[in-house]
């Protein structure tokens, strides 16, 4: 190392070419673009819209639960939590990180010009919006009242809301997932730059690869499920109806065969984001790169074999329950390994606490708390007690909201300069990150207590003695709402008023930082040649080497 001379942080000459944002300015140039970066921004607009629609429903839920008497009519309350679940799961969480940051950064991180199938990518956005229109139709006409899980025979025979429209929205939405996943798999297999071997891929790309495999294999099952549900509801073929020889539990098996992997669809990309942020702000290599890749793929594969842990009290054979409990503990092992590796990745670092790092550290803590409560739910006898209560609500919100949404905001801040060419106001961002953490814990930690006390989920009322915990939770939700709205304001402001970002404002090693901010339409002036792994940070001398092999002092 001593013979190497170190340049300053690379200054890439402002190119004569305009960036992807400014090359064309017509509306048509956005709506018919095939540029993965523009499509990522289109997706970003769509999912942000649905995040606030789903969030609005959550706000109504928490307002209603602030008092036992409630605020909403029971039928409205039931429709609000159903639509909150459907919109947040399929219209925000599942597409969130893959369609935005995955779309934008997978080609940049592997040194490609675009995804393998740019037209399919654009089609995916149109299909997503079509499904979005259908779900908005369902919502405006009167919404579904089944819970997001559509359990039969309630959903097929007894519910009188817009179940068919909601199910069709989910059905159509699945095709968008499948197209996006296929695109990522082919891109990562075929379009890596010279020298970008599998074991040199950034962990974010590995995570997107793992999640794409799960999406591509699980989502067709969802299409079958929702199709059969629609047929059953309209014609009553009796597949899930015991009066015609059907089995209500068959629906649960089929639904969770998709929807449990879907939980990992929501968390794997978040794990990838955090694996990028932590080395960058700790200024040291990720601990156990190979272990992290193995853990990602192990989670992706094992996620298919744990679905019946949603059914421990549903009347499956108790020995099936035992088998699925064991498999569930197995899938927790790679998750635990990842937590330890992220934590030890701080050891001997040179740590700064910028907003993305605060979000990432928050992610690790919230994910760990969601994880240990997941272990409690995997333990059969404890699940018998807390299944169907607020304990479960708290657990999966820690994973899917606490962890995934924190990672989403972390990614948004980390890559904001690359996407927009502008920095963001650091103090405001740190404030929002801390506020998210405080608001989140205040919202959901009391729900663990409520759950063990026995408060059933999906109830519009509760006994008066539980009000204190519900008030705390609702108070936390209002803080959380501020923390989620705040970035909308200061990031919006930053586009026009903040300082311009140079190519590599965080002194990071990935290929996406070797091209100007914002990147030109074709990403790179020349095809990058990769000579080493992704996290060559040297905390001892505060230096780093990019994946192309260029050493820099920070």
């Amino acid at each position, binding site marked *: 190392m001593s013979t190497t001379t170190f340049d300053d942080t690379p200054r890439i000459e402002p190119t004569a070419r305009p960036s992807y944002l400014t090359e064309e300015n017509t509306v048509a140039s956005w709506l018919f673009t095939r540029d993965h970066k523009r499509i990522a921004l289109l997706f970003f607009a769509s999912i942000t819209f649905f995040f606030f629609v789903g969030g609005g429903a959550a706000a109504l839920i928490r307002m209603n639960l602030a008092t036992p008497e409630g605020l909403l009519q*029971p*039928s409205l309350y*039931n429709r609000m939590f159903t639509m909150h679940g459907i919109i947040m799961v399929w219209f925000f969480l599942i597409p969130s990180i893959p369609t935005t940051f995955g779309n934008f950064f997978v080609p940049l991180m592997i040194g490609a010009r675009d995804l393998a199938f740019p037209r399919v990518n654009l089609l995916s956005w149109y299909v997503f919006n079509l499904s979005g229109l259908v779900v908005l139709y369902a919502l405006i006409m009167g919404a579904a009242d089944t819970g997001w899980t559509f*359990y039969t*025979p*309630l959903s097929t*025979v*007894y519910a009188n809301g817009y179940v068919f429209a909601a199910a069709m929205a989910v059905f159509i939405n699945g095709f968008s997932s499948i197209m996006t996943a296929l695109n990522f798999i082919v891109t990562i297999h075929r379009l890596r730059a010279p020298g970008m071997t599998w074991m040199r891929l950034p962990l974010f790309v590995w995570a997107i690869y793992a999640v794409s495999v799960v999406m591509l294999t699980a989502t067709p099952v969802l299409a079958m499920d929702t199709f059969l549900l629609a047929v059953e509801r309209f014609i009553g073929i009796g597949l899930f109806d015991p009066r015609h020889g*059907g*089995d*209500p*539990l068959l629906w649960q098996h089929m639904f969770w065969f998709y929807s449990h992997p879907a939980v990992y669809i929501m968390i794997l990309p978040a794990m990838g984001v955090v694996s990028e942020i932590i080395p960058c702000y700790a200024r040291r*290599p990720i*601990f*156990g790169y190979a*272990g992290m890749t193995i853990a990602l793929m192990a989670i992706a594969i094992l996620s298919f074999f744990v679905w019946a842990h949603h059914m421990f*009290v549903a*009347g499956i054979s*108790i020995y099936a329950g035992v088998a699925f*409990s064991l498999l569930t*503990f*197995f899938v927790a*092992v790679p998750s635990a*390994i990842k937590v*330890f*590796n992220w*934590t*030890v990745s*701080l*050891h*001997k*670092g*040179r*740590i700064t*606490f910028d907003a993305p790092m605060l979000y990432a*550290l928050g992610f*690790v*803590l919230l994910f*760990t*708390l969601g994880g*240990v409560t997941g*272990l*409690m739910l*995997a*333990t*059969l*006898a*404890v699940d*018998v*007690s807390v*299944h*169907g209560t607020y304990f479960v609500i708290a657990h999966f919100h820690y994973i899917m909201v606490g962890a995934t949404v924190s990672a989403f905001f972390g990614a948004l801040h980390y890559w904001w300069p690359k996407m927009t060419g502008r920095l963001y106001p650091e103090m405001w961002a740190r404030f929002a990150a801390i506020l998210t953490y405080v608001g989140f814990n205040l919202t959901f930690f009391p729900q663990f207590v409520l759950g*063990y*006390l*026995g408060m*059933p989920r*999906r*109830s519009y009322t509760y006994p008066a003695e*539980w009000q*204190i915990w519900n008030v705390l939770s609702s108070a936390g939700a209002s803080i959380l709402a501020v923390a989620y709205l705040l970035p909308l304001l200061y990031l919006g402001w930053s586009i026009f008023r903040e300082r311009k970002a140079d190519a590599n404002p965080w002194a990071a090693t990935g290929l996406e930082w070797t091209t100007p901010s914002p990147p030109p339409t074709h990403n790179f002036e020349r095809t990058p040649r990769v000579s080493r792994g992704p996290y060559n940070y040297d905390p001892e001398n505060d230096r780093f080497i990019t994946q192309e092999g260029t050493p820099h002092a920070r």
Partner: protein
Amino acid sequence: MYHWIPFWPDTAAVNAVVVNNLYIAELGLSGLIMVTVVAMMLTFCIRYRKAASNSRADLETKTWRFEILWTVATLGAFLILFVWGAQVYIWLYKPPPADEEVYVVGKQWMWKVEHPGGQREIDALHVPVNKVVRLVMASEDVIHSFFVPAFRIKHDVVPGTLETLWFKATKTGIFRLECTQYCGLQHATMQGEIVVMEAPDYANWLDSQGVEESLAQQGAELFRAHGCSGCHGKNSTIIHAPSLTGLYGTVVHLQDGSIRVADEAYLRDCILNPRSFTVAGYPPVMPDFSGQLGEGDLLKLIAYIKSLGGKREAGR
């Protein structure tokens, strides 16, 4: 109104004690894991913050040793939790011989309870303390879930079959009964109370309900009214049909070679769908009764068949 902030439910049954211990152990382990992660994170964040001058030399590069260490450690801890949880689960869901049996029917949005003596209640269940109470549960419409937080017991009640659940209350008093499976508009109000009484009080309560016929007697009437007795009756010689005397709880060999224990769910299946459960050696001539009998009537018929004798320890 309340005088203190509730943070722990009552522990009022033997089932609850066992689950509670496991829950407390897991809270302890979870706390330990959280403390470890937080302590490591805080230590590193302080020692290795940018401004700190601690040495960063000799970064650990042989990471696989650590990976194996915490894989083995977590797997070991998880397996202990798994075995503990699974043992208790099997115990929770395999009813011991019952002192009392009660039939429960869930429907939108109430719990209907029938005692073997014919006593009926809605959204309430009176039981004696320190007795094993076995519930046989049916649903008339959608899936419900029978949950008593103070007993830590829960089981979904799925239409189309019968489910069983048991408990042994250790405290007298009134405890919440809930439905924890979303079952439509008034799911939130599908609640009731479990009233646990001393044995003499319970006997008095049963006597004071003004009942004329036991559940089995009501079942016997249905048995005749629906023509079951024509073939399955004691003196029936016209048609060769399996005798129901002493049937309950025994092992039945079916025509298709499979073997079933004649528990409540089996009896229900046979009444509604007899051609699928033809007993070996008998002609498949029984008409099916699906659509003719409600869940309440089915339970009465089953109570009658059980009153004809059999092995009492039957259960899943």
